[in-house]
């Protein structure tokens, strides 16, 4: 027996924290962390609904797996973009106005795409 109040509340809190994280961060990678938190809130909600029964196609679990997969894809692309921006501008500060490239493009080797 389990009360679903806890999971629901936690999902709401995580979503709120994620929103705050997205809005209050200037570093692009840290904004991603906020996004991850929101995604996890959604996952938690899905799983807790799945655990409560009335879930015909195991949708709670399956959709959570899907979201995790999508999150992986999203993170890979987002981080590639962040690295490209860093190479171009030498910083990943989102509140900095988009100006011409800083005259110091930091060239790494073409990164292997990981995972």
């Amino acid at each position, binding site marked *: 027996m389990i009360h679903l109040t806890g999971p629901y509340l936690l999902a709401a809190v995580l979503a709120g924290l994620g929103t705050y994280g997205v809005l209050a961060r200037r570093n692009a990678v840290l904004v991603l962390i906020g996004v991850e938190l929101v995604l996890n809130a959604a996952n938690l909600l899905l799983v807790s609904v799945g655990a409560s029964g009335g879930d015909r196609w195991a949708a709670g679990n399956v959709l959570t797996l899907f979201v995790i997969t999508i999150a992986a894809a999203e993170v*890979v692309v987002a981080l590639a973009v962040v690295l490209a921006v860093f190479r171009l501008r030498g910083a990943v500060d989102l509140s900095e106005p988009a100006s011409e490239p800083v005259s110091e493009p930091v060239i790494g080797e073409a990164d292997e795409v990981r995972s």
Partner: protein
Amino acid sequence: MTALDVAFAAVGLVTAASGLLAVTTRHVVHAALWLVVCLGAVAGCYLVLGAEFVALVQLLVYVGAIVVLVLFALMLTRAPIGANPDISTGRLHRVLAGVLGAGVTALLAAALLPLAGPAVERRDTSTTQLAEQLFGTWVWPFEVLSVLLLVALVAAMAVSRMTRPSVAAEPAVTGEDGVA
């Protein structure tokens, strides 16, 4: 309060606390490390909720791969040790963000909590069941997802190689991260 409630309360508190630290800490890398704790605790939540396979995948993919990738990106984009006020926006902005975040929480809680109702019997989803559904009912979304992964892979590769031509003209200043 049942035993599961107590267990969930414990993991949930860890989740919320580490999540809070992940979005508020002033140390860049600490944020990612707190995210690790948060995601691990979320995996614990899944366990308590009876979704053990999802919990393991959460651990394997989120903690084992995604967060490592995030840490990797943080280190590649300069992550000095010590507090750094520059990673957050200004005070006013943060207060507004906090209000908005609290609003989101309040809204969701207001919508969800009435639905919670009395204690329910936990329904475990066995791995076999999950597999049958995944490769039966959900097989088409599953296939589409694999295409999405492929696209993401190719896209990431394309994005990371994009800067090459423009760079060729500039004098190559290999700075602090000749890593990769």
